[in-house]
């Protein structure tokens, strides 16, 4: 039992880190493709070893802590960012159950009955990594970046939470496993909650600090934002945490709105249970890949928002829309009942 969980935990952490690692390469390749360039192609065949080369470079750089920085918090910042990024995968159901030697193994680390809230908690704590790092660097640009990040995360959390409430009302459970079970056979939540999905998508972009909402690290105004003073692997952790976050939020969106590991009408083929589970997991990762592609596509297509535009969009557009969505869901739910 414990061994099974340990294996699943190492698989999930390994997959998160591995996918995040190759997302960096994909990001550069995609940027090159969208801008009609070739992209990194020196390390390994077609540039396949580029992430390894980047990692080695970051590890071998000089460890540097600015003279007036708060040393303990300066190191804690990227550590917290990375820790929280890796914690997100714990409640996502990565597949249905496998039957190995008469035992049923669930492909989920923890099936807690408040899975949605757990994810929400991890997201809302994500502000600390950035704020602590930005403040402890003792640099005004870092501090501005950190403050921007905090206000951005708080503003978009509200709309995200409201869109999630409508989803929970529809599914009648907060457990991610139950939400996926509710969507089996093509009854994906995105069909019933298109507006909720759009709001969640926009908020996910803002929460992961991705373009067009990457104001915390806006180079033209803030040099590097909250990680201006960071170098070597500490900077690497911040950048890496962003890619892990992107992977986890893609997984969350696939789970909440796109049926998770569900393949519509797969039951018609009468496959064996284990094969169906493995195919479902592959399908889930395909959905996640699609979302990661969308994240990158948007980054290299849309310009960055201005800060007041960001706040107006969050408070004056998304929150009223999310409230409207909530009321419509409640009324329609009552009428159908």
């Amino acid at each position: 039992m414990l061994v099974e969980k340990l294996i699943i935990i190492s698989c999930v952490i390994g997959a998160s880190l591995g996918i995040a690692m190759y997302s960096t390469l994909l990001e550069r390749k995609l940027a090159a493709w969208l801008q009609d360039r070739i992209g990194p192609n020196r390390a390994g065949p077609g540039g396949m070893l580029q992430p390894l080369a980047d990692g080695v470079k970051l590890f071998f750089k000089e460890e540097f802590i600015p003279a007036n920085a708060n040393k303990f918090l300066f190191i804690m910042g990227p550590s917290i960012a990375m820790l929280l990024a890796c914690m997100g995968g714990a409640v996502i159901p990565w597949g249905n159950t496998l039957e190995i030697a008469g035992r049923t193994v669930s492909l989920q680390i923890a099936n807690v009955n408040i899975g949605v809230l757990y994810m929400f908690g991890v997201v809302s704590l994500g502000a600390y990594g950035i704020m602590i790092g930005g403040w402890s660097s003792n640099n005004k640009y870092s501090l501005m970046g950190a403050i921007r990040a905090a206000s951005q995360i708080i503003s978009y959390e509200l709309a995200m939470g409201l869109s999630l409430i409508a989803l929970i009302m529809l599914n009648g459970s907060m457990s991610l496993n139950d939400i996926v079970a509710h969507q089996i056979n093509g009854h994906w939540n995105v069909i019933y909650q298109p507006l909720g999905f759009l709001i969640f998508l926009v908020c996910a972009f803002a929460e992961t600090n991705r373009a067009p909402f990457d104001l915390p690290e806006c180079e033209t105004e803030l040099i590097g934002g909250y990680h201006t003073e960071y170098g070597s692997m500490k900077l690497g952790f911040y950048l890496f945490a962003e890619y892990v976050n992107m992977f986890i939020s893609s997984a969350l969106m696939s789970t909440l709105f796109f049926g998770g590991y569900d393949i519509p009408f797969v039951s018609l083929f009468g496959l064996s249970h284990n094969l169906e589970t493995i195919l479902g997991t592959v399908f889930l990762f395909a959905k996640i890949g699609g979302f990661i592609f969308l994240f990158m596509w948007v980054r290299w297509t849309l310009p960055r928002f201005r800060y007041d535009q960001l706040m107006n969009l969050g408070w004056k557009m998304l929150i009223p829309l999310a409230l409207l969505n909530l009321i419509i869901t409640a009324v329609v739910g009552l009428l159908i009942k």
Partner: protein
Amino acid sequence: MIANLPNYIFFFLAFIAIFFAIMVITAKNPIHSCLYLVLTMFAIAANYVLLNAQFLAIVQMIVYAGAIMVLFLFTVMLLNLNADSEPVKSNLMKFAGVIVGGTLLLLFTAALRKSIGDAEPVMNSIPMQIPNHSNVGLIQNLGWVLFKDYVFPFEAISILILSAMIGAVVLGKKEKVQLSTND
């Protein structure tokens, strides 16, 4: 040993909570105070998990540690408070502080002492509605209690919070008007 494990964990968590709470008031740097307060919140959330109240624990983390403390940090960072810029408090202020703190302690102790006798019948009445004692803190049961037995206080509190929110907005607006007339 195993039966006493929750007790040991409780004492450990209580020690952490109180230790960091003391650090909050003794830390010179306001940012450090804020961060210690976050750790205190976490210790309290862990205590809720120990009581099988997972929903309360996660809400404690989202609302207090995740939102309110981020706002606190945000404000402290913006104000740029330093240990040396803190005004020296007069003896009168310190005396008033001691009185207020002592009264609060008295109030809490009184409330706690009174609730020790009251908690027993409440705990005993719960199994009538909920068959499994260990599920008391789960979200379904909490929902039933909140929206059935305590629906009036619940709604009253929400109106109270709404009025506080509107008050904050009104106060914030007033300042802006004054600023523009000064210009």
